[in-house]
């Protein structure tokens, strides 16, 4: 599986994603500069966390127009896996690869914490390796307050596109229906506010991000078995 981690001016979890891929899958992910227009070689594209273009205007609003993002849209169309983490999730919604929008947290503060998540859909290509329904993965964001209107929410629920929810009754940011991560209809693009790449070893306080990376590799192998 060839893996790319996009790098925008202002990305700051790019190296962490590379480290996590190496640590959990023993694969060397390529850092891909935002001016790259060709992502044909990649099976997994990670859009990492950070503050692309300073998150000025709106988080993810400017990054979406980069060449690398246009190539990512094309890659998603051909069926490659796309994983947007935190700022990456914001970029994917701005780019229209995922529904909804991420607003400022309802309490108006940045929030960094270990949070408990419910794995709502453990059957996706990104979550099939999860053996438990509750996992602990950190968040770190100021604009993670997921919004969709009622109609879209119904559709997400019907299609089982809600992949992660915050497990505590009160979400850490005010998200509609406690949503922490959603997948597209086709099932190859996942966006999530929590940081699985920060939960890959005991010394970081959680290993619950490992299964996410493993799931992708297993799914990719299955897809390429025949």
């Amino acid at each position: 599986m060839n893996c790319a981690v996009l790098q925008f001016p202002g990305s700051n979890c790019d190296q962490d994603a590379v480290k996590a891929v190496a640590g959990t899958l023993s694969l060397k992910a390529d850092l891909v500069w935002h001016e790259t227009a060709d992502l044909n070689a990649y099976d997994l594209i990670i859009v990492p966390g950070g503050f692309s273009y300073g998150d000025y205007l709106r988080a993810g609003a400017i990054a979406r127009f980069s060449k690398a993002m246009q190539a990512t849209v094309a890659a998603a169309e051909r069926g490659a896996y796309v994983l947007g983490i935190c700022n990456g999730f914001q970029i994917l919604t701005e780019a229209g690869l995922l529904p909804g929008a991420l607003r400022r947290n309802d309490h108006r503060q940045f929030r960094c914490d270990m949070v408990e998540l419910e794995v709502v859909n453990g059957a996706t290509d990104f979550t099939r390796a999860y053996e438990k329904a509750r996992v602990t993965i950190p968040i770190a964001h100021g604009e993670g307050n997921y919004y969709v209107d009622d109609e879209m929410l119904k559709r997400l629920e019907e299609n089982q596109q809600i992949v992660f929810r915050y497990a505590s009754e009160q979400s850490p940011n005010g998200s509609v229906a406690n949503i922490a991560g959603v997948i597209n209809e086709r099932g190859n693009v996942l966006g999530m506010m929590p940081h699985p790449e920060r939960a890959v070893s005991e010394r970081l306080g959680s290993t619950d991000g490992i299964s996410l990376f493993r799931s992708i590799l297993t799914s990719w192998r299955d897809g390429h078995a025949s």
Partner: protein
Amino acid sequence: MRREPTEQEIRDQRMYVKFGLTDDEYARICTRLGRLPNYTETGVFSVMWSEHCSYKSSRKHLRRFPTQGTHVLQGPGENAGIIDIGDNLAVSFKMESHNHPTAVEPYQGAATGVGGIIRDVFTMGARPIALLNSLRFGTLDQARTRYLFSHAVEGIAFYGNCIGIPTVGGEVVFDARYAENPLVNAMCIGLMTHDQIATGHASGVGNPVLVVGAKTGRDGIHGATFASAQDPNEKERSAVQVGDPFMEKLLLEACLELIATGRVVGIQDMGAAGLTSSSAEMASRAGSGLTLDVSRVPCRETGMSPYEIMLSESQERMLVVMKEGESAIAEEIFAKWGLEATVIGRVTDDGSLRITEGERVAAELPIAALVDEAPVLDRPAVRPAYLDQLNVAPVRLSTQGDLTGDLLALVAEPTIASKEWVYRQYDTMVRTETLVRPGADAAVIGIPDSQKAIATSADGNGKYVYLNPRQGGAMAVAEAARNIVCTGARPLAVTDCLNYGNPEKPEIFYQFRESIDGMSEACEKLGTPVISGNVSFYNETGGQDIYPTPIIGMVGLLEQAERLVTSAFKRGEGAVYLLAPKGQAIRDGLGGSAYLAMKRPDEALSYQLPAFDLDAEKAVQDACLALAEAGVLAAAHDISDGGLAVALAESCVQGSVGLAVAVTIAPDDEQEVLLFGESPSRILVQVRAGQEKRLKELASSFLVSFLPLGAVAETDRFHITLNEKTAIDAEVSALRDAWRGAIASWMN
């Protein structure tokens, strides 16, 4: 364009006074130059000779700090100090104040403080890996304080989070003394290999000088002078800058990439007094001269005069000297990051700073006069009368106290309460190397691809220094080191940020001078040289000075990261002991304590501090370190604000465990001192299961006492028995709620 005043007008109308120069200083400048300085030159002198840049009040005294050590690669004098941590690795760190800007615009003031200290570290060639901040505000019952506090924290979070450096520690103290003069001290730590070290030297005649990063605007002109002004609210309001962490992130990446090429001769960040101080200091260090054409400096605004360009404090800029003929490399690398790198001049050998605007010479000044010959003052120091009126501290306040109630109230005092409300706004985990996040004694950060980790802590207690400047200074260093050894790390070196009132008052200057001696003695004893630092004077409003508040930032090394010890008590492990100086587990009353301040606010400043002995401190720290290295400790926690009872409560809450403590003390009426007294040099330790024998063996080899306190319990009860009577009986969950909820309840 406005006409600039002429040389004669500046003299005749004493315009230099507005710039912050005294009659004396102005006369000296005229004599030195042999002529009258023009407008630009007067401006340049005024910032270079300001307290902020010249350290004129403090310079003489700062020399007493120990700065040597076999592991010191770079001591004070550069943008940041550097220490060796072995394996060709080094860490660079420094702390700096942004107090005055924060008082005026807390969000941007605090944010740009963080931005400035990050630049200081990456100019050394180090990649920043951690941030800390030390904060002082008034009391939270004041709406203005809540405004300053919440916005300053938000500004710190905004900058650090955006640039992607974890904020891993710090401290916050609330006291009415800081209501008008909040303190924001920011510290940054960077990691590098030995061959990456860069310095701020402008050497090599003919080498090109470049301005890189953001464009120059009119912001912050005279910020350096303003930092030294007595009333921050009266000063020029244009002196506040706006930070752009996105720009700084790009600048950081570009500079590190540039330094890695090996073609950089010298590099320095443009902080206070912008282009003026960076150019003068770089030339001064190299003994060279510079000629700069300000018309080539990329400006954000039109019609900027040489004066404005030289004094602008626009953020996110650097001055770089490249090897001759290599400036194109800089332009290329910066272009990749979407930034400008522009040659604005050359290095010369005539010892002067020549500023031109195109062909016209706008200023020409001897660098020695700007830097080395800046005034050094010998300010008078007089022992304040209050020091001789302090009483021997009481050992008991109430005849019939509700000690449980007292503990619950004490843990909810904002200064003692959990600072989670603050640090949950900081990204503490980015870079995925934060092994101990905020909330413990010291933060621990792993070194990538290595067994090593560093521990770091920022500490200071202004009230202690007020009550006993010399001892208080030493205690600040001791506490920082104690926090470090509690993680199992060995203290290595110190950066400091010295925040004081008006140095022109002899009593204030006495506090300054004495506390420096105290800090120096402690640094000497504990083997932690001072490698960088910063001074902030004039933290005074309406005649009221802040407490003398030196903050110590310390870094220590853990050779084996997996050996690290945390402060949370753990289930299934052994007993809890009090590690203290021999025969002195309890002593000397409640002077200076948070308990006294809570119960008898009017008398909080009336009593002497408990005694402090550096040899005893060193013995306790050595013992703790040896125990940690031997793998005997399940937990270790320093006893500081709030005393033993608060420290026990914190370790229980952090570990979600109960506790049963039983101690016999004589005489019977020293209960409150035992529970809440703040005698220094004490550490709580929990021994690993089955290791009690090892503990006793090891302990006897140190001149320290190990007082058994009790055992961790599987319950929700926090129970302390003194002389066979229940002294405190609380639910751990109640302590937790009081401790964790206190600041949030004020802020919501």
